[in-house]
């Protein structure tokens, strides 16, 4: 295997590891905000690494650019989704405190 193939393999394996951690965080963490942390950070790091590995394997500048667009959109979408869900949970949580 060439150096880029080894590098791609390394990136994909590392990325898969982050996905595992994300799932574990989602299942183990005690409250919804901590779970949000696990999802947004671990999964997007995982996706970034897998995307970098796949871009190396495609050996095409256009595909690499396309994968970069996918990655950036995924980052923005996931971060905004995380913010919206957190804000929603916060608003509902405060409502619950007001009415014991």
């Amino acid at each position, binding site marked *: 295997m060439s150096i880029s193939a080894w590098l791609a393999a390394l990136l994909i394996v590392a990325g898969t590891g982050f996905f595992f*951690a994300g799932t574990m965080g989602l299942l183990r963490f*005690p409250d919804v905000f*901590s779970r*949000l942390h696990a999802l947004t*950070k671990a999964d997007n*790091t995982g996706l970034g690494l897998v995307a970098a590995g796949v871009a190396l394997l495609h050996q095409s500048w256009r595909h690499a650019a396309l994968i970069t*667009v996918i990655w950036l959109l995924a980052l923005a979408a996931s*971060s905004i989704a995380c*913010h919206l869900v*957190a804000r929603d949970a916060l608003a509902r949580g405060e409502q619950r405190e007001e009415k014991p």
Partner: protein
Amino acid sequence: MIQVQPALGGRLPWALAVGALLFVLWLLLGGGQGPVYGLMAATAGAGIGSWLAPGTLQRLRLRPLLRFAALFVVRSVVGGIDISWRALHPAMPLQPTWIRYDLGLQKPAGRALFMITISLTPGTLCAEQQGGEVHVHALGPDMERGLREIENAIAAVFGESPRGPGA
């Protein structure tokens, strides 16, 4: 809508920028096929976009932008490692706290970028923003320093002056 003068001033550059972006996207998705149709579609998109939702172009500084991008990549990988360590550690070291962070950034684009960024960097998550105050959920103590670092990097990109340690 009522502010005709500044909107007119900014509308043409905005349309050109949107059109150029759409055309590049067309070339990227289509593999360079049908550039004439792409040009037509990009022109139509730019026209409709600047008619319905005109924005203002921000003057971005290239060198701080690259520095911010590098900071972002490094911090988001660190964020992934940090949360993975917390998730896989048998004792799950979590000390969830809430931070009220006083945001010095003035431009809406900068504020939006800040909110997107901090949810991806170690231990912090943006839950609510009201004016200059951001409600941040943190997984441990002493997270303000990382927030301040990102704020200063974004301030440099938009040409705003960085703020010292304030309230």
